[in-house]
Each structure stands twice: as structure tokens, then as C-alpha cells.
């Protein structure tokens, strides 16, 4: 059901790359044959643009962070190639004072390409370290700043780059086959990465960064990896462009190329490799048509006036129209191989009876937690325990501090003072390590990975559970396949639905299943029955029992719904104004006057 093992991902990658590359190559070679040298050049540039745009897609599509800086990596690759391969004679005239004695160096094209790619990888990793901690507009501005820095250096570090004028002397290679080979490799890498478990985890962070981290996804680490990989692909495109042109120029690698690649990605669909390829084809054709119009063609019966720049207007309008009308591009998340894929849902996937019963969940202990928000004591000395396998309730009126306690226990917020232990070890400080320690949660406002399928939502945490070190856990919890997990929570028939399209109750159930796959010690449920009627909350109660039944994990349910908590939990804490005001069995809590008062209010003080 899940195509997320390495080999399967590679298989998907090769199939998709073939399905995309074959028509593209036929088009390119055909166009070249029909239109002579000019046509061949245009076709080769389009192929190189596929390398560049698919390369950008690896990062942008999977992480959801838009980069305006990848053309900078193409520039680094191209200039590195130029400096390493051009004959020393040219360099002594052009850059006599190059640092590191570079003016005397001359490498063969393959060796120079390897060195250039390594250089791009280093620069990419360096920029990636900055970008990985940022999201949204900040990240985009940093990538734009990188592009400007590269452009500035190319123009002004004259001793190394020769400055603003073109740098000639690169051994030219006009054969399209090298470009085709590289394009094929990049297509495989991008497609396989998208289908891999690693890619899936990064896509989870694209859908919801906080939820992904809380489910054990190392978001910065994955972003760094994808960014570097995608920088190298962009660098390869730069190298190919340098070899095609035989000369490089800072203006070749600045905003014009950035604009056109952004347009290609946006039009095709940034979440899809197929979309990236389609975007390049459509924009290339469109750009050519508008260039032709702009050149004032003679139509036989009339000559059109010169309209230089009309192709730029076309690009700009395409970008605006797609952002307004269809921000996910032509393809959205669709890939070409989806045409041929038949998705079968297994009838059932029962969990075998002889599963490993040795596992004992660790208890969660919180001692004297305090948290202030600009002077307001949201949590004011909370001590609580969730014993091994115990189902515990935490109730309290609106504003009591329940959500803050939840955020402290799940590692989303650090407490001002106080300790949280899992077993006898402190809760890790990094959010994604908390889930790896077997503590997972759901969210009050449901935070699923909406555009991923139901199966993929669970696969994200199942993958984390498979790959965490048993040292962090003490003992090894039982392992389940994704179909087993889905079947256990009655989600199997929904496996291939997008999570965002599920009904409310199903979304809650999926969120519990997702947390259950990784939360072998304690699962924290934040207001799971908010907004549910009696029937729905009855069904949710069964999901919670299923969760408890799966690995025997402890459960902490935070809710304001007293009847629900009374019917479900073994022990209950009552929180009011940031403090625990009562603790006991359901019977004790139901008859405690302080609880009633906290709930429906008191008489006049």
C-alpha cells in the first residue's frame, strides 16, 4: 500500500522519469531537426531549464518554502566551470590576479564539473543552514538576498570573475545528449525523493510545520538536505548552460532567469515533478511565440509593429493569473504516472495475536510546572502523572490553562520552571525528539497533513517509529505496518482519500491514529470531542480505546466535557486558573463541589 521504501521510491522515480523524458526528448530532438541550429539551441535551453526547474521543485515542492535564489546556484556552477575550464591564456588576459593561482589552472570538463558541483553543494549547504530554520516570506527573502549577493560578487569581484562583462573561453558542447542524460538523472532524483519516506516527511512539514515536528519529523534537517540537493541540481543546470553558451555573464543569472523559472514552476504546479516539466514546456513555447510577436513579424498581409518586451508582459500576466486562479498550478499534486496507477485497498490487515507483549510503556511525570505569558500566570505550579498505560483526564473551564499544560507536556512550549520526565529521563528540548521518545499528541483545532492521503498521514509517524533508536525508548515497542494501523482504527477504506476531505469525526480519528503510531508511551489528546454530538463522541471514545489497546500507551485527555471524561478516565485532574484544584477517581470528581463551581460559576463573592 505504501510506496515508501527506498526501492519502491526509486522504481516510481525511474518510471515517472521515463514517462516524462521520452516525450520531452522526442519534442526537443524533433524541434531541433525541424528548425536547424536555432531550433536545436532553443530545445537544449529548454532541456536545461527542465534540469533547473525540476531541481528547484525538489526543495520548493516538498518543503513549501518558495526560493527565489536557486538561479544563484546556477551562477556559482557556471562561473566555477568557466574559471576552471577556460584556457590559461584567456585567463591571464582576463583575470591575471585571480586568487589561489586559478589563472593558471585548466581542468578537463568532467573533472571541472565535479569540482563545481562540490562547490555548489558546499555553498548550498551553507545557505541551507540559514533557510532551514525559517518559513514563509522570511525564507524567501533570504534566498532573494543570496541571489543578490551572488550577482553582486560576480559583478564586483573582478579579480576572480572578470566583472560585469562576459567571460569567454569555456569549451563548448552542443550535443543534447549530455543534457538529456543529466535531465533524466534529475527527474529520477526528484520523483524518487517525492515518493520516498524522507520526501513524505518534508511534505508533511509543508502541510503543517508544527504538527510535523510534534510527530517526530526533523523539519530543519530535512529542509537542509532537500535544499542542498536542489541547489546541486540548479548548479548542474548552470554548468550545462555554460557549456552550451561557451561564455557566461552575470546578467544571464539574475532576475530575468529567476522570473522565468518562477513562472514555469508556478504555472506547471510546484508540488509536482510533472508540473515542473509541463511549466517549462508551456512557458518556453509561450515565450517564443511572444518573442516572435515582439519582433514585429510580417504576416504576409500586414507587418506587426515592434513590441520588445511583450514576452515579459506575458510572463507577468501568467504569474498573476495563476496566483489568483490556480495557485497550485496546472497539475496540483498530480503526476503523470497517476494515469496508470491502480490503487488497491486491502480488505483487512489484522494485527497478529502473537505480537510482542514484552513492551511496557514509560510513565510521564510533570513536577511543579509554571508558565507566564507577559505577566499572566497561565500555568501556576502543576504537578501531574500519567502512569504506565493509565488513562487520565485533565478538565477545567475555558481559560483554565489546559492548552498551555498540553503544550508544555508535548514539548511545544518550554516551561519557565518545573520538570517533565518520561520514565526517568527528561523530556527532550527539541520538539521532534519528543515524539521519538514515544510521546505524541493531537490538536484542539485538528492539524492533519491535509493534502496528503490518510495512509500517508499515518506513514509519516510509522516511519518515525520504525527509525527511532531503541536506546531512546528503553524497550522496543511492537511495530505495525501502515495497513494494520489503518485497519485498527477503521480507516482502511479511506486510505487514499486526502486527509483534508474527510468528515470531522474521521479527521479526529485519523489524528488519533497518526499519534498512536508513534506515541508508544503517552498520547496527549487535546479536546478530542470539542464540537461533537453524543453519537460522535461515543465513536471517538472507541477510537481512544483502540489507541490504548494498540500498544498499551498511557493517555492524557484534556477536555472541558465532564461527562465524556468521567466515562473514559481512570483518574482525573481538575485545573482552574492555572492550578490543579482537585484530583481523584471519576466518582470523587463528580461529587466535588469545587469542580462544579469551577465549571458553571460561583455565587457572588
Amino acid at each position, binding site marked *: 500500500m505504501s510506496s515508501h521504501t527506498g526501492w519502491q521510491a526509486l522504481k516510481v522515480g525511474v518510471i515517472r522519469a521515463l514517462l516524462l523524458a521520452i516525450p520531452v526528448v522526442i519534442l526537443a530532438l524533433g524541434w531541433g531537426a525541424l528548425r536547424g541550429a536555432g531550433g536545436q539551441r532553443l530545445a537544449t535551453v529548454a532541456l536545461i531549464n527542465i534540469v533547473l526547474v525540476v531541481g528547484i521543485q525538489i526543495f520548493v515542492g516538498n518543503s513549501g518554502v518558495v526560493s527565489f535564489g536557486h538561479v544563484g546556484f546556477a551562477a556559482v556552477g557556471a562561473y566555477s566551470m568557466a574559471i576552471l575550464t577556460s584556457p590559461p591564456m584567456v585567463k591571464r588576459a582576463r583575470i591575471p590576479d585571480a586568487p589561489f593561482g586559478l589563472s593558471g589552472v585548466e581542468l578537463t570538463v568532467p573533472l571541472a564539473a565535479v569540482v563545481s558541483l562540490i562547490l555548489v553543494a558546499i555553498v548550498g549547504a551553507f545557505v541551507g543552514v540559514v533557510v532551514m530554520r525559517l518559513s514563509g516570506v522570511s525564507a524567501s527573502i533570504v534566498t532573494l538576498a543570496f541571489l543578490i549577493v551572488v550577482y553582486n560578487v560576480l559583478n564586483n569581484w573582478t579579480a576572480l570573475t572578470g566583472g560585469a562583462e562576459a567571460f569567454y573561453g569555456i569549451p563548448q558542447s552542443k550535443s543534447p545528449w549530455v543534457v538529456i542524460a543529466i535531465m533524466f538523472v534529475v527527474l529520477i532524483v526528484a520523483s524518487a525523493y517525492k515518493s520516498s519516506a524522507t520526501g513524505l516527511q518534508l511534505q508533511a512539514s509543508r502541510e503543517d510545520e508544527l504538527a510535523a515536528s510534534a510527530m517526530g519529523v526533523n523539519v530543519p534537517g530535512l529542509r537542509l538536505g532537500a535544499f542542498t540537493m536542489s541547489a546541486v541540481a540548479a548548479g548542474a543546470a548552470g554548468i550545462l548552460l555554460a557549456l552550451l553558451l561557451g561564455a557566461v555573464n552575470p546578467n544571464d543569472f539574475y532576475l530575468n532567469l529567476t522570473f522565468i523559472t518562477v513562472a514555469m514552476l508556478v504555472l506547471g504546479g510546484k508540488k509536482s515533478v510533472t508540473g515542473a516539466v509541463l511549466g517549462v514546456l508551456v512557458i518556453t513555447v509561450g515565450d517564443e511565440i511572444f518573442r516572435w510577436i515582439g519582433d514585429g513579424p510580417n504576416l504576409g498581409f500586414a507587418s506587426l509593429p515592434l513590441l520588445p518586451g511583450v514576452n515579459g508582459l506575458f510572463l507577468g500576466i501568467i504569474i498573476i493569473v495563476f496566483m489568483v486562479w490556480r495557485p497550485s498550478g496546472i497539475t496540483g499534486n498530480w503526476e503523470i504516472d497517476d494515469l496508470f496507477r491502480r490503487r488497491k485497498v486491502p480488505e483487512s490487515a489484522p494485527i497478529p495475536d502473537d505480537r510482542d507483549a514484552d513492551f511496557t510503556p514509560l510513565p510521564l511525570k510533570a513536577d511543579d510546572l509554571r508558565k507566564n505569558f507577559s505577566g499572566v500566570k497561565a500555568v501556576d505550579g502543576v504537578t501531574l502523572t500519567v502512569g504506565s498505560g493509565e488513562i487520565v483526564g485533565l478538565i477545567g473551564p*475555558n481559560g483554565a490553562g489546559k492548552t498551555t499544560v498540553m503544550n508544555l507536556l508535548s514539548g511545544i512550549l518550554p516551561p519557565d520552571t518545573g520538570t517533565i520526565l518520561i520514565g526517568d529521563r527528561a523530556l527532550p528540548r527539541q520538539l521532534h525528539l519528543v515524539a521519538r521518545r514515544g510521546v505524541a499528541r493531537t490538536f484542539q483545532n485538528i492539524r492533519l497533513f491535509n493534502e496528503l492521503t490518510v495512509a500517508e498521514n499515518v506513514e509519516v509517524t510509522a516511519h518515525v517509529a520504525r527509525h527511532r533508536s531503541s536506546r531512546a525508548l528503553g524497550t522496543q515497542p511492537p511495530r505495525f505496518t501502515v495497513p494494520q494501523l489503518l485497519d485498527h482504527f477503521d480507516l482502511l477504506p479511506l486510505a487514499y482519500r486526502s486527509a483534508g476531505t*474527510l468528515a*470531522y469525526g474521521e479527521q479526529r480519528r485519523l489524528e488519533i491514529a497518526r499519534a498512536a503510531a508513534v506515541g508508544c508511551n503517552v498520547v496527549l489528546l487535546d479536546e478530542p470531542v470539542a*464540537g461533537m454530538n453524543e453519537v460522535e463522541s461515543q465513536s471517538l471514545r472507541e477510537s481512544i480505546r483502540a489507541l490504548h489497546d494498540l500498544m498499551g500507551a498511557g493517555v492524557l485527555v484534556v477536555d472541558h*466535557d*465532564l461527562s465524556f471524561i468521567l466515562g473514559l478516565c481512570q483518574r482525573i485532574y481538575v485545573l482552574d486558573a492555572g492550578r490543579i484544584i482537585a484530583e481523584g477517581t471519576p466518582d470523587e470528581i463528580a461529587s466535588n463541589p469545587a469542580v462544579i463551581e469551577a465549571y*458553571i460559576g460561583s*455565587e457572588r*463573592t
Partner: protein
Amino acid sequence: MLQIDSLVVRYGGIQAVQGISLEVQEGELVALLGPNGAGKSSTLNACVGLVKPASGRIVFEGREVQGMKPEDVVRLGLVLTPEGRRILTGLTVRENLLLAGAIRKDRKAMLADLDRLLERFPILGERAGLAAGTLSGGEAQQLAIARSLMCAPRLLLLDEPTLGLAPKVVDQVFGIVEELRAEGITVLMVEQNAVRALEIADRAYVMRTGVIVGQGTAEELGDAEGLISSYLGAGS
């Protein structure tokens, strides 16, 4: 004065309000009670255009207001004091009030009202020139209510006016609400503190999971026991 008929509010797949109907007569103080997540705030937000109802009608003084923009609803005299107060902390206390008064045509009367409010809420008078961000929770709630009054409300919607306030301040806020009612302002109040709200309200509706499960006067709704069971559902 206000009639809500079969109102449905959805967020994504969640049906927060599931076809409720209620009514507020001129001069009444009506409480809308119920546990967290019952759909009370969603109901108020739908009245003032902050959320668009999926279906149903909201009629204020003979005009259908569902789907209108918030800035147009407030001009009709249907004014919400939102949950969490949402005072503009970067503006001064006086500027908060002036902003609210800006919708009124008669500027002289508006300025007179401003002076009256600054007298009525002395703490606001003292702090008129200071940034509203320097106010404490209770003071900020007074500002939020005063600000709504500057809009010349015909019907005032109060969303959780006592949330997060210390018990003493809660008393003060309930005192203000009682005064408003004495002045003849019609009020629909969402409140968690059901016992206190029933003390001052003429009537109440009790909501739970998006539907109205009880309504009537404090006597009709019964003692605390009965209220608890409507709060907590049939299960307890």
C-alpha cells in the same frame, strides 16, 4: 429586535452551529450559556459578519444581516464586544474610543458621549492619553465595553466579558452589565459563568455542541442541578 432562524455555521468540515433559532426583544438582557465549543461565539460572530453562515437567517430590526460586512453591521447599531477584548494596544485609550465613535454622524454628540464615558469609567479617564496596552485585564474589558458603547449600540453583543479576570473584577464587569441593562440597552451576552449570568439575565439559552438544549428564565431553567445536566449532557 434580533431573530436568528435556523443558523448554521461551518468551519471546514466542522459544523459549529447546527441550525439554531433564538430571539432577543428590545430592552431584554439575554444570556447565551453553554460549555466551551458549544458554538456560542460562532453565533455572535455570524451576527456581526465576522463569519459567513452556511445557511439560516439573522434579522436585526427587520433587516437581514447575514453575510454583511462587519463594518456595515456595526453601523446598524448591532455591536459586538469580542472575546479576548481585542483592544488596540498601540493606540491610546482615547484613540480607541474615538475610532469607535468615528462611525457616528453627529460628531458633537459623539464627543459628549466620549466625555461621559471617561467619567463613567474613571480609570479610563485617568489613562485617556496612555497606550491601551498599559491597561490591566479588567481595565481593558472596561475599555472594550466603553468602545462598543461609543458605536451607539441598539443591541450589544458581549462575548465572554469576564474570561480570564480575577473574581473581584468579574463582579465589577457584571455590575457594568447590570447598569447597561438599567439604561435600557438591549444585551445578548455569552458567558461561561452560568450562575452569575442567570442572576442578572431576563432569559437564557443554553447551547451544547451547536444546538440549543434549553431556554427560559432562571426559574424555568431550574436549579444548578438542572443546569449542570444541560451543560454536561444526558450522560451525567
